Structures are given as structure tokens and as C-alpha cells.
């Protein structure tokens, strides 16, 4: 490029330079932000992952000891990894399927569609802490309304957030309650499917499930991929609901300096992001916390790169 511009007439060269300065000026908040809130902490995290550092005394180099600790001597790492993968697999699948179902339903509703859209969307807006507290109450095994209603119709009453085999399903239910964003995205995609394709398929004598399979699905496939990939990334970051549900269900008083059994009950809601907080801010093992942070980063970026494929249509440009 440099040699091309050197052959340009001076007026044009000046214009180029002015344009570059203008671009830099417009981008400057982001350039600073990217460098300081992304690159710098990322490199520091890598640096600290090789250091023994308690946040107070000077850090000392320990090579791969933190990595070895996390992978081989810290059994709750694999438990947390297992829980995170469980949430990724189950929560994302059910959320996307349910979001698509509700989106489909909403496009078919003729009477009161405004009411239904709002009703399905509202829970998405509930602040995560408030939503989790509400669900901890609703699913509270002793006096909660859900178990009350289940008892009334003679069904078993699970322990939900207090039972290790029900805590993750309870969190999944909470996640499905907040489906509003996916519903809107799917609804928009479904309304974009060309009418003529349905009409043509109908003339060919296809059944409704066949039309869904051969007309709807291919048309909305990019949005399904988008929903799955962003869902996986969100599930990797899953934090607030897991920690609040654990605290409320275990009856531990929240607030500053209070310790509680992480991942209550029995580590069943323990996830990778909580591990970073626990190792770094409660056990003051900065090095190991940074190892977990890098693992989290690597997995998240692997999925992010899927979104950035040209085919995903996520990074479309004007030309």
C-alpha cells in the first residue's frame, strides 16, 4: 500500500492522510477500550497463570504448577467442567427448541397476538437475581407453589434447588422461562420466509410437518445456528443464577465476606466462571484462577470464531 500511495499526487495523498486521521479519531474510544480492557488484561491473565500470587506478596514464577494443580490436583475443576458442559448441552438445546416452538406459536396466533407476545417476552426482562429468587421461592420444596400444585394432582414433589439431581434441571427451567429474546429473533426469521415457497409446497400436496422440514427449516437455518452458538457462549458464562440459587437454597446469608458451599447442593451447580471467582477472590490463588480464566477464554473464542464465519452472516458488511 505504501508504495501505491507514494505514486499518488500530493493532493490525494493529503486527502488519504486526513481520512486516516479522521477514522482513527472516530475509533479512538474503542481503540483505547480494546487495548486496555481486552488485550492488557488478557496478556496479564496469561502472565499470572505462570505465577504464584496471592494478591499481596510479590508474584513468583512457578512455571506450569498452576496448570498442573487445576488439571490434576483440583477435583472440583472436572466437576465444574462437567456441570458447565451439562448446561451447555441441555440448556442450549432446550432453550433453542423451546424458543423456536414459542416463536412458531406466536406467528400462528390470530386473536390477542399482542398480549401473547408480551406475555412470552416479559420474563426475559426480569433481572437474573430477581428471577432466581422468584424461582427459589416457587420451587421451594416445603411450601413452594409448584410443589403444592404437583401434590394436588398427585405427582412427585422434587427437591429442586436442594437436590443435586434436580438443581440443574431447575436452573434449566429458569432459563427456559426467559426465552423472550430467542422468541423475537425466531419470530422475525419466520415472518421473513417467502410466502410463495409455502404456497408452492402446498400445491405439491405436502403436509404441515413436511413444509416445516423442507421450507421453514432451510430458511431459518442461519438463525438456528446463531442461536445455538450464542447460547453456548452464554452458557459458558453462566454465573449469577447458579450462585444465587445455591445461596438462597442453602440458606446462607449473602453479602460481603460470607462463604457458602460453592455449587450447593454437593457441587451440582458449580461452574467454570464461579471457579474463577472462588479461586481468585476467596482463596486468593490468583495463578490458578487465571488458568481457569484462560480455559474459559479458549472455549468461548472457539465458539465465537464459528459466528465470524462468512456463512454465518453475522459480520455482513455494506459491500
Amino acid at each position, binding site marked *: 500500500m505504501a508504495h501505491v500511495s507514494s505514486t499518488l499526487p500530493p493532493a490525494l495523498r493529503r486527502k488519504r492522510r486526513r481520512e486516516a486521521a479522521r477514522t482513527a479519531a*472516530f*475509533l479512538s474510544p*474503542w481503540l*483505547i*477500550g*480494546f487495548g*486496555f*480492557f*481486552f488485550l492488557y*488484561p488478557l496478556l496479564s491473565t496469561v502472565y499470572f497463570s505462570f505465577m504464584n500470587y496471592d494478591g499481596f506478596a510479590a508474584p513468583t514464577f512457578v512455571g506450569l504448577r498452576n496448570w498442573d494443580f487445576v488439571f490434576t490436583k483440583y477435583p472440583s475443576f472436572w466437576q465444574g467442567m462437567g456441570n458447565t458442559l451439562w448446561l451447555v448441552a441441555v440448556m442450549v438445546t432446550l432453550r433453542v427448541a423451546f424458543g423456536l416452538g*414459542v416463536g412458531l406459536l*406466536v406467528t400462528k396466533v390470530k*386473536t390477542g397476538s399482542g*398480549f*401473547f407476545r408480551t*406475555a*412470552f417476552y*416479559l*420474563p426475559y*426482562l426480569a*433481572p437474573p*437475581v*430477581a428471577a432466581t429468587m*422468584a424461582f427459589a*421461592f*416457587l420451587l*421451594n420444596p*416445603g*411450601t*413452594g*407453589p409448584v*410443589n403444592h400444585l404437583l401434590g394436588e394432582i398427585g405427582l412427585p414433589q422434587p427437591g429442586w434447588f436442594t437436590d443435586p439431581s434436580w438443581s440443574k434441571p431447575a436452573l434449566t427451567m429458569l432459563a427456559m422461562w426467559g426465552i423472550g429474546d430467542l422468541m*423475537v*429473533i425466531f419470530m*422475525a*426469521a419466520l415472518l*421473513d420466509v417467502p410466502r410463495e415457497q409455502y404456497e408452492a409446497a402446498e400445491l405439491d400436496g405436502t403436509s404441515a410437518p413436511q413444509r416445516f422440514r423442507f421450507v421453514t427449516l432451510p430458511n431459518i437455518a442461519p*438463525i438456528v445456528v446463531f442461536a445455538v452458538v450464542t447460547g453456548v*457462549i452464554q452458557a459458558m*458464562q453462566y*454465573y*449469577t443464577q447458579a450462585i444465587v440459587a445455591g*445461596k*438462597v437454597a442453602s440458606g446462607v*446469608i449473602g*453479602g*460481603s465476606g*460470607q462463604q457458602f458451599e460453592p455449587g450447593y447442593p454437593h457441587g451440582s451447580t458449580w461452574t*467454570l466462571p464461579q471457579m*474463577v*471467582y472462588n479461586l*481468585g477472590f476467596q482463596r486468593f490463588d490468583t495463578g490458578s484462577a487465571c488458568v481457569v*480464566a484462560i480455559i*474459559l477464554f479458549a472455549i*468461548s*473464542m472457539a465458539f*465465537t470464531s464459528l459466528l465470524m464465519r462468512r456463512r454465518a452472516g*453475522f*459480520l455482513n458488511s*455494506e459491500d
Partner: protein
Amino acid sequence: MTLAPSLPTKVVPRTLALRAARRKAVLNWVAVHSLAIAAALFFLLPFVFVFLTSVMTDRQALTSDLWPHHWQWSNYTKVWNTDGFLTWWRNTLLYAALGTALTIASSLPVAYALARFRFRGRNLALMAVVSMMMLPPQVTVIPMYLFWAKQLHLSGTLWPLIIPMAFGDAFSIFLLRQFLLTIPKEYVEAARIDGCGELRTLLRVILPMARPAIAAVALFQFFSCWNDYFGPQIYASENPGAWTLSYGLESFKGAHHTNWNLTMAATLLVLAPVMILFFLAQRAFVEGVTLTGVKG
């Protein structure tokens, strides 16, 4: 359908076919709406139960009764007057309002440059925006905490959460850019012919047109500050005077251990502003969600 009487010879077969089609349509209507009602119950009943419990007496809240015998509205004033609740409220509002204003002021020019300027490395910059948008906050939190707490001694305040917003927010940049791409180039060119510089074009031409997108970004940003739990837990937890509603709410459950009625009243008080804001600006919000998910 009104044609039928004028064609007497074909009345019989046609009405039969029509009747079958109509019956099918009615059945379809009933099926769709029953499903929708069932779904609406799943989405709305939690709000109803939470509300009903929030007005129960302390004693009734300990039972599994679903309907309050005596509507105790004073639960709400009791929560409102709890130590700290007003402070948390004020802190949350400060965090959300300042954070939103800073985010928009810093993200709009970046989004404009990414949507309109042609420069080397533009795709790289876009990839960087998306990467940052998808980055779990836990990945960078340790060095950032060390910086804010040890270098600037700002832990115990919300400033470590607010100040970074003056340097662009990836999600807002992305969403604004998606929207700006949909504004025809001709507007920019017309402004240029009228002698506007880029900044004037952005402020005078683009800004008014981008109002819906800016409203959507503002709402998203406001909600994400309002809902943030991780940030305040990291930076504000040591100082109850800097807690936000999301962080304080959880400790409220601790302070009122068995009082589900008060806890649910507090939960609704945290939820209410979000709901009110949503009803006031519903369209902007839904447009914003669509914009993030669908290629522009």
C-alpha cells in the same frame, strides 16, 4: 364466500367443502390458542405467585397457601424502609444512568466509522468487537480488579464499572453498526454535498435517523447495568454503601431469612422499574433484539 347464493347449481358441493375447510380452521384456531394460553400460564404464573406472596402476612407466607387471606400492602413500605434499600436503589440508578450515557456517547462514533468508513483493518476491527462482545467477564476480571483496587484504590465503589463505559461497549457498537448499515448511503452523500464534515453528518443527519437504534441500545445498556451482579460483587461487595439492587437483593434474603413475603416484595420492587421501562419503550426494545439476531 358471498358468491355462493348467486351460483345455485354449485351450492351443495361448495358449501360442503367450505364447511370442512372452516371446521378445520376453527379446530386449528382452538389448538393454537389453547397452546398459547398454556404457554402464557407458564410465563405469567410465576409473576402472579410472587405477587400474591408479596402481600401475605409473615405467618401465611410460611404456609403453602396460594391466596392471601389478608392483603398486607405494608410489606412494600417495610421493604422500602429496610436499611440500605434506598442506597442500593440510588447506586443502581447512578450506575445504570451514567453507564448508559457514556456507552452511547462513546459507541456511536465507533459504530459509524465501522459502518461507513473504508479503511485497512476494518474487518479485523469488527472481529475484535465481536470477540469482546462474546468474552466472559471472568476472563479479564483478575488483572482488572488488581488495576482498579491496587493501583487506583477504587474498590468499594462502582467507578471501576462505570468508567470503562466511556471507551465503547462492544455489544452497543455492534448493534448500532448493524442499524447504521441500513441507512442508505445517499443521505451521507447529500450531507457531504451540503458541506457537512463527518462529525456534523453524524450528529445532524445520522443521529436523528438512528434514534430507534439508540433507544434500543440505551435500554439494553440500562438493563444490563441494572441486572449486573458479577461486577458489583467484585468491586462493591466490601462496602455495603456501594451495593446495587441486584447485589443487595440476595443479601436481603439472608437478612429476612424465612420471610418469603418480604423477599418477594423486594424482588418485585427490583423488577418493577424494568417492566415499566419496557412498557414505555416496547417497540424500541423488540427492534433491538431483532437487529442483533438477524443480518442487517
